[in-house]
């Protein structure tokens, strides 16, 4: 201990304090502050870059999710549209069928009516022809049988009555 105290040099102590404090002040101003600031800035920069990368990734994910959603929506819409189209097709076919049937029915009805009227006119014509024929026949018969007038009239009546029944 005595040797330690004996070895203690006040001059060295004095210079050490002066040099160290000066060194501290100089280095603080010209070295440590710029170095630490540069390092901090760099770390901040790296942190920001990482953050923004993370953000971009999230955005990408969001975009992808949106795309997926849109695609799904589109798909669903297509599905709906297809279904509608199918329904419309079925309905149109059904309508067409119905219409065609109605038309056909109508045509048939018209044809029947035409046939009926043709028949009627034909019958009427037939009747006329029959009447005329009958008249001719009757004329001939009359010419042949006009000897007996009464007989002739009776015959005509009978004949007419038969024709009506026909």
């Amino acid at each position, binding site marked *: 201990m005595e040797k330690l105290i004996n070895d203690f*040099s006040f001059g*060295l102590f004095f210079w*050490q304090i002066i040099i160290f404090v000066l060194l501290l002040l100089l280095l603080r101003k010209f*070295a440590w502050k710029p170095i*630490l600031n540069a390092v901090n800035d760099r770390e901040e920069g790296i942190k920001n870059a990482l953050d923004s990368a993370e953000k971009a990734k999230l955005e990408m994910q969001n975009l992808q999710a949106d795309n997926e959603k849109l695609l799904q929506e589109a798909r669903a819409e297509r599905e709906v549209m297809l279904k509608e189209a199918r329904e419309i097709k079925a309905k149109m076919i059904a309508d067409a069928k119905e219409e065609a049937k109605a038309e056909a029915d109508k045509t048939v009805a018209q044809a029947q009516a035409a046939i009926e009227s043709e028949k009627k006119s034909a019958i009427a014509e037939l009747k006329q022809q029959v009447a005329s024929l009958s008249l001719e026949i009757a004329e001939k018969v009359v010419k042949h049988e006009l000897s007996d007038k009464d007989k002739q009239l009776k015959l005509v009546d009978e004949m007419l009555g038969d024709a009506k029944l026909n």
Partner: protein
Amino acid sequence: MYFCTDFKDTVICSKMQRKTLVRILSVLLFITSFSAVAQDEHTAEAKEILPEGKTKKEEIKEFINHHLMDSHDFNLFGSTDEETGKIHHYGFPLPVILWDGGLHTFMSSEFHHGENVVESNGNYYKLYHSKIYRTDAEGTINYDEDHHPTNVRPLDFSITKSVLMMLVVGLLLVWLFTSLAKSYAKNGSLPKGLGRFFEPVVLYIRDDIAIANIGENKYKKYMPFLLTVFFFIWFLNMFGLTPLGVNVTGNIAVTTALAIIVFLITTFTGTKDYWKHIFDPLGDGMPWIGKIFIYIILVPIEVLGMFIKPFALLIRLYANMTAGHVVMMSLIGLIFIFKSWIGGPLSFGLAFAIMLIELLVALLQAYIFTMLAALYFGFASESHEHHEEHEGEIQHL
């Protein structure tokens, strides 16, 4: 030797192993016995009285002591003249600055390594065992019964070897780290060259010493000191390991100065909580009557702790560096004591191994000093949240 894989081989193999073992042992025995003989011979030789009336061992011891002390000139090496027995010194002188009722300045070469008395402004000075004493014109030095000089010692502000080394290291640090700072500005915050080596060290001090011990919020204010003190101690330790042989950090005055700076910073940056921790360590956890009896013992211990902490710093650095230098010098000295072809290489090998350890110690002591300083700053800047935690712990107990 080969591996015994087969049962058949085992017998031969064990024989071979035994043979090698015996061979190694016999070689070892041979070496130790030989070196023992060598040692006997050369201790006898070493005791042979040298011209100056000292044994070689004493001479080496004196040389080591001299090396550990600060010096007024920068000696690179010396040689003894065979004919006259005079020692020639090679090196350069350093300025001597004394305050002794007035300023006295001259170059240390005027002392002629303690042989001459220097007259300056009417006072006479003599260099004795690396210290300057005021003497009379003949340079007589008076001793007390313990053979200590009783002459007056003037206040010595000389630029000694240690001061010169501190200046050199200071300039080196300023040059190194300002150029590093400039390279950051130039290269867009990227380290280049030496910065690649020093940046991790700076970051380590910031992250694992300052932030770990002081805390994220307050570490910034202590960073310049911690970085400066780390590199200052480390570089001086490293210079101490060079053949220049400067033992700056192993000088008690230097470590005292550093410790006092640590103490001042701790004391002046101490928060309310720090002082409360010293003078009222139990806080509100106990009624005042109970506290009185505990505090009679506790408060003096805490106050002593304030001084013991930096004191431990100064002694640790001083003792470690001095011990390292003593061991190194002793091992080198051994080479001159065993002048044999076994002892020389053996002490050289040992010295080399110790040198490698000293390289680690140089870094380790700088680290420990910085680490403990940061720890004390951490106590000093203790924040209130931390204090509440302590209170919680006490209540919990």
